[in-house]
């Protein structure tokens, strides 16, 4: 607990060699941060200001909140937001699976590296590749259904991406398959670095597999799990565009079954030639994402103040 506390102490403690030197030290990090800060401010600050301006205008004329009103009352946008919200339900599933895989890998003595690679590989694959492959695989007469029919499991051979009642669930499953590797490796890395004394003591006391990991391991992984959960929540709210675009040919179909807010923004801006509506929707998405990002920073700041060392 104390690396952060020590740092804080250095920043504020009186310097025995003089006040001027102390002041110089307090400005220490800024010259290093400034160039990158200016770059970020220029690239994203400019875009942000431009985006905000666009969201209040129509063809250069100030329209107040009109674009926001049109977006918020658009049934398609409402559907898109609803789908993003539904995708958030995949986060607990992702966390549970990642935790389970990490623990299993941790407990695996032989072939751990192979299994690690196997679990992490989907995360490394480019999303367009994943989209195209699954798009083919999951056709009504695709390889998966042909296999199921060959096994006599006709009733399980669904129109995975072609049925509006099925498409979003299928999409979620693909996202989980792709994203779970990241969480597994993240949690596993933390797991390996945990002190082993507690686990050994619990084993000597007769704790079984589930009790050991439920009562001892998992609590110690709290911050890394939280970090992963927030990261995935951000993914579900604002990073699923690639999956949807590739697997539905940019349509968000069938019907509007897989429409998500990013695709709505993209289509408004580049397909429907309505950049103002796209800007208003982007501002709304930005605000909703902010909640998660603030949470992300809080977790980060807590980890810096020692939570990772709990």
């Amino acid at each position, binding site marked *: 607990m104390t690396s952060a506390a020590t740092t804080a102490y250095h920043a504020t403690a009186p310097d025995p060699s003089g006040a001027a030197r102390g002041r110089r030290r307090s400005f220490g990090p800024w010259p290093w941060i400034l160039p990158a800060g200016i770059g*970020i*401010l220029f690239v*994203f*600050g*400019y*875009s*942000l200001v*431009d*985006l905000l301006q*666009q969201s209040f205008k*129509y*063809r250069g004329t100030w329209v107040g909140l009109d674009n926001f009103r*049109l977006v918020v009352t*658009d*049934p*398609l946008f409402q559907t898109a937001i609803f789908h993003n919200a539904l995708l958030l339900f995949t986060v607990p599933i992702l966390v549970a699976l990642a935790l389970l895989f990490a623990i299993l890998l941790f407990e695996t003595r032989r072939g751990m590296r192979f299994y690690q690679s196997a679990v992490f590989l989907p995360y490394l694959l480019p999303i367009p590749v994943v989209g195209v492959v699954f798009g083919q695989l*999951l*056709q*009504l*007469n*695709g390889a998966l259904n042909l296999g199921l029919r060959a096994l006599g499991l006709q009733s399980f051979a669904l*129109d*995975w*991406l*072609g*049925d*509006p*009642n099925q498409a979003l669930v299928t999409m979620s499953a693909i996202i989980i398959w792709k994203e779970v590797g990241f969480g597994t490796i993240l949690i596993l890395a933390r797991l390996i670095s945990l002190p082993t004394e507690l686990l050994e003591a619990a084993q000597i006391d007769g704790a079984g597999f589930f009790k050991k990991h439920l009562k001892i391991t998992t609590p110690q992984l709290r911050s890394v799990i939280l970090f992963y959960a927030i990261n995935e929540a951000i993914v579900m709210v*604002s*990073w699923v565009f690639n999956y949807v675009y590739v697997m*539905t*040919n*940019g*349509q968000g*179909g*069938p*019907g*509007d079954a897989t429409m998500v807010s990013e695709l709505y*923004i*993209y289509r408004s*801006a*580049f*397909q*429907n*030639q*309505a*950049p103002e*509506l*796209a*800007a208003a929707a*982007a501002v709304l998405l*930005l605000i909703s*994402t*902010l909640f998660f*990002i*603030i949470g*992300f*920073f*809080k977790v980060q*700041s807590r980890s810096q103040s020692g939570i990772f060392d709990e």
Partner: protein
Amino acid sequence: MKRRGIAGAIICASAILITSLTSAGATAVTPSKATFPTGPVKLVMWWWGEQEAPGAKLWLADTIKAYKVKHPNVTIQTVLQTTDGLVPAFAAAAAAKKGPDLQYFWGGIYAQQPGWDGQIAAVSDYIPAKELAHYINASTEESFQGKIWTAPWYVNPSFPVVARKDVLSKYGLSVPMTWKELLNACDVLSAKGVTTLAGGIKDGWFGGWLYSIIGAQSVTSSKDVVAAVVGKQKFTDPIHAAWWTRLQETQSHGCWNKDINSLQLYQAQQLWVSGKAAMTVVAGPDTPNFVAKVGASKVVVMPMPKWGTGAFAGKLGTTSQTIGITKWSKYPQVAADFITFSHQTAQLNNWFAKTGSMPADDRFNIAGVKDPVKKALFTSVLSGGPYLENFIPAQLDTDAVFTNAQLVLKGTRTGAQAAANMQSVMERLRMTDRNLVKNFTAWAK
């Protein structure tokens, strides 16, 4: 710490969300009618069409080569676009006012909208009217208040149904020419596990085709469609809504391949080629190629079976795929000269030789075409019906026609529900696109 966290959060969120929405503020270049430049000139052409007119790429290479002989100082670089990327790529280029000098556009609204949005210069500003008068469909689809936005390149008879006599006769059926006959064929063939009509609607485009070839049978002209767009008629009125019911009938009679929602447009057509389906709908320029794959003796090329009593029932539609000149092009007069060059007799004949389809120019000698299928198609486009999809806002097409067609063909939405949804999307569009009514009204005049 909290403030720093929030500031960092804002920056990160910006990074995630905004990069694709930046806009450039350069001023559009006003087209000049300067003399033909003698210094080095480079034109960039973004095009599409190889997908429906195979051989177009070869023709383009030949034409550019021939133009280079005439104007050695002009270099033309071509970039082939994807179907899904054609409109968004140009929209991004237009936002940045940077990109192609020559841009491919589908006809009608796809050429009108960039004109209304100030993204292209009217070709009629650079090409004489007597030359443009030869370009097929220029005045019906590309004209706006005396201007012609884009120059027709090749004609798309839209859209022929190809029927396999061999597959139909195997089950005791003849080629269905009326709606009743079509539904009967669907009943017979679906009972045998055979697909009557092959289609792929995952990418949506087929919905627009179906709207045009089924929907055209009940309207009196494209002005009816524009009237529904601007609110003088409704898409729930019988002449606009009846086609949805017909589409639902095809679904309930089992006309289509069951995987229609998981196949793309061009993928599904292969079911017909392989004999797994009796009929399909193909792009006009590509029709001769499909006929050749199966054998002319086994195929009948026809319009969609007739159900309506409108003037266009039992007729093919006609539209031209076009080339426009971007507003930011430094050499619009060179671009226009290249377009004119591509309409010279040698280039028109070479287009036919390379693609087997018809160039959009009435100076092309149809009488010289020997193949009866091609000849019939080419003749039909000179008096074809309107291609409806080109007379509605592109967003209505994607948000209502594509989506509802997917749902109706899946059986999860009725025709009446689809019509009501199309009307409600249209009403909403009139609010979101504040210039829509004005532009469409002016176009219809």
